[in-house]
């Protein structure tokens, strides 16, 4: 069997159809959209048309879309841009334990500027403690930011409940969602969430790397991070990349097609894998919550470090990761898992399998076998 790719949360590789489409777009729309000649205007028209399609895919207005270089830039723009533009709204920012490092580090930077960041704990299932949220939300809260889908565990944020609490206790606070792992993976419509802005990243749903987006309600004021030619209403200067914008919309559209069947497929794959592991009597601990995004399966094999298992699986051509690929250079057990109250022994032995609809049952059988073989050979026996 050829390579088994089970690391779609790190990046979803663009398929041939998307690559062909991208090449076509590069040929046809590589003019500068700000140029007044025909080539430039072709690119400008392409962006306008892409924005319309994107708006209908996501459930927003075309002028609510800001294209960026990726998820990290979108998150930075949302958080830094919002507090800078609304200095009188308050000084407290609320977030949750186990956020992505793009959020953690941006908030750390804002802390150094004098903002107070309050971190809401999460429970064993990765869920936010809503009672604490209700308690800490006050008139000094300017902003809340949460992961829509946790990139390590797949835990899904109860958006409606959070919006309800906010509307009741502090209607003036804004909510930002980091939905990098949600777009193209679970149904998500901006207008129906009730949040104020939402970040996404193209390469997580099959676009080549280098593009992301921030969707924001029209009334939300932002201070730009990047100044220059005033593109995108002055909120994000820099020549717009018409071919990549078109390809992101194309890829998201493809990811969203039959999304419920795809979710179902991933759910089946996941059950298949777990049942195979059970049959081979390979003991494991499921860390992902039962009601999480089915394409993310976080498992621990106590007695065998996640890294060791990852190396062993790679030899069998199975590509998985331990926690977030974005912080793979960060040593020690995952922050998310520790925040969920896992012991270090379990957290260190966890791996993340992230699926997409192209994965097959045969791949699950091969993966379960490879895990079983690695456990048999390398796992520390429980008695020691």
């Amino acid at each position, binding site marked *: 069997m050829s390579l088994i790719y089970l690391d779609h949360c790190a990046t979803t590789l663009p398929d041939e159809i998307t690559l062909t489409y991208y090449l076509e777009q590069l040929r046809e729309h590589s003019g500068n959209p700000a140029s007044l000649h025909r080539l430039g205007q072709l690119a400008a028209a392409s962006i306008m048309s892409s924005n319309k399609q994107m708006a209908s895919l996501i459930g927003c207005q075309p002028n609510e879309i800001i294209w960026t270089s990726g998820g990290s830039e979108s998150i930075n723009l949302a958080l830094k841009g919002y507090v800078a533009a609304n200095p009188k709204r308050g000084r407290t920012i609320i977030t949750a334990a186990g956020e992505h490092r793009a959020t953690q580090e941006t908030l750390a930077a804002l802390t150094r500027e004098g903002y107070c960041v309050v971190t809401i704990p999460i429970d064993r299932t990765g869920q936010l403690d809503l009672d604490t949220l209700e308690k800490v939300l006050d008139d000094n809260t300017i902003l809340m930011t949460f992961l829509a889908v946790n990139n390590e565990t797949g835990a899904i944020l109860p958006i409606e409940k959070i919006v309800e609490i906010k509307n009741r206790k502090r209607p003036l606070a804004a909510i930002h969602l980091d939905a990098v792992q949600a777009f193209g993976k679970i149904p998500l419509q901006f207008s129906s969430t009730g949040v104020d802005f939402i970040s996404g990243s193209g390469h997580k749903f099959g676009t080549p790397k280098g593009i992301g987006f921030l969707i924001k309600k029209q009334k939300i004021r932002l201070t730009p991070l990047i100044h220059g030619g005033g593109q995108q209403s002055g909120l994000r200067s820099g020549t717009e990349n018409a071919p990549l914008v078109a390809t992101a919309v194309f890829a998201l559209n493809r990811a969203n097609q039959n999304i419920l069947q795809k979710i179902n497929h991933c759910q089946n794959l996941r059950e298949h894998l777990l049942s195979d592991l059970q049959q081979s009597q390979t003991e494991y601990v499921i860390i992902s919550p039962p009601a999480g995004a089915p394409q993310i399966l976080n498992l621990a094999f106590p007695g065998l*470090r996640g*890294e*060791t*298992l*990852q*190396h*062993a699986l*790679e*030899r069998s051509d199975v590509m998985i990761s331990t926690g977030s690929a974005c912080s793979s*250079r960060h*040593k020690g057990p995952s922050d998310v898992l520790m925040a969920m109250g896992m012991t270090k022994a379990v957290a260190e032995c966890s791996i993340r399998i992230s699926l997409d609809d192209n994965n097959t049952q045969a791949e699950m059988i091969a993966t379960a076998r490879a895990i079983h073989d*690695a456990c048999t*050979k*390398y796992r*520390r*026996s429980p008695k*020691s």
Partner: protein
Amino acid sequence: MTLDQLKSPEKLEYDQILLVRIGEITLKGMNRHKFEQQVVSNMRFRLRDLGHFNITPSQSRIWVELDTDDTESGFKENSTRQLAVIERIKAVFGVVSVSPVRRFSGDIKTIENQAIAYTKQLLADGHSRTFKIETRRGDKRFPMDSMEISNHIGGLLASQFSDLLTVQVKNPDFTLYIEIRDHIYLYSSIIKAHRGLPSGTGGGGLLLLSGGIDSPVAGYMMASRGMKLEAIYFHAFPFTSDQAKQKVIDLAHLIARFSGRIQLHIVNFTDIQITLRDQCPPDMMTIVMRRMMMRISDQLAEQRGLKALITGESLGQVASQTLEALVTTDQIATRPVFRPLIGLDKDDTVTIARKIGTFETSILPYEDCCTVFVAKHPKTHPSLRIAIESEIHLDIEALVKDGLSKIETLTIDAFSTSSPEAL
């Protein structure tokens, strides 16, 4: 007179060569010739992919010049090739310093013209400087003595470049050296090298190389005493990653820039490590593992004819490097274990690692096999008796045999033409 006003002298002829000074080895009496030949041979080997060079020893110095058949691509001052050659020569142990030198023939008039042209180039940035002249007259037939030449040329330069140059005998910004021997030599820069004794004159040693900061430095230090290095690395995939192995190979390449070619022996240690993990008390795991590594290393050294083992241990640095722990590993070896870092502070080791360029590679975050099974509270003061008792369930002979039978050997040559460092 300013630089612009100064008329360029007529085109001057000179050869561009390198003067290499060799130091400590000149003290070695009868062995001097042998050591000098070894430096020349090591230099020749290191420069082999950079061009054809004539390398000639003469009176505690070595002259390096580009072969006349190979002058097309040039050997000018500050040329890429000359800088690369200097870098390579600096790393040859036994070399104290290197100077790029202009060589020509003639009389005092020629020296005047050459000194003016050379100084003009030195002052090209327009900054003022202090200077002095130092002359050595080996050829006593030259009509002026050293002092006269220094005074004459010093006075001439000071008047020619009066806006920019002032004579200062103590701590000048630069010294212009004039040497009169079979030819006349002119230079101002003395680039310090790594000193030491030439590689291959101090016997052979086996370096226990891990991916850390210390062992590459230990290897460098013993190589600087003339020791020819081979290295052994214990790879325990999948407990340690292939990146960790690549890191060790990269470190061996970096050490080989100084030590010369290294045979790197990579032991597949996985099965041994599993056996130790399952059959030894967890708090003694590291000690037992190091004793096992020592046994395999000692036997490999025997097979390879290497007379010493080299480790990067420093007293008290970690639990396995307390005196008691070192005694338990020393007891295994049947040959001397050299630990050149034993009395060094970690900061001192890091300084050397930075100097030799291994630090950045050493700190890449890949696990090594010493850290994957570390107990929460390892024994820091194990007695030999406890160490031996901890091994009671092990078939040591079989494990050592297993390790020795699973060795992959790589030849690491920092300057092979395929190497990225090769120019």
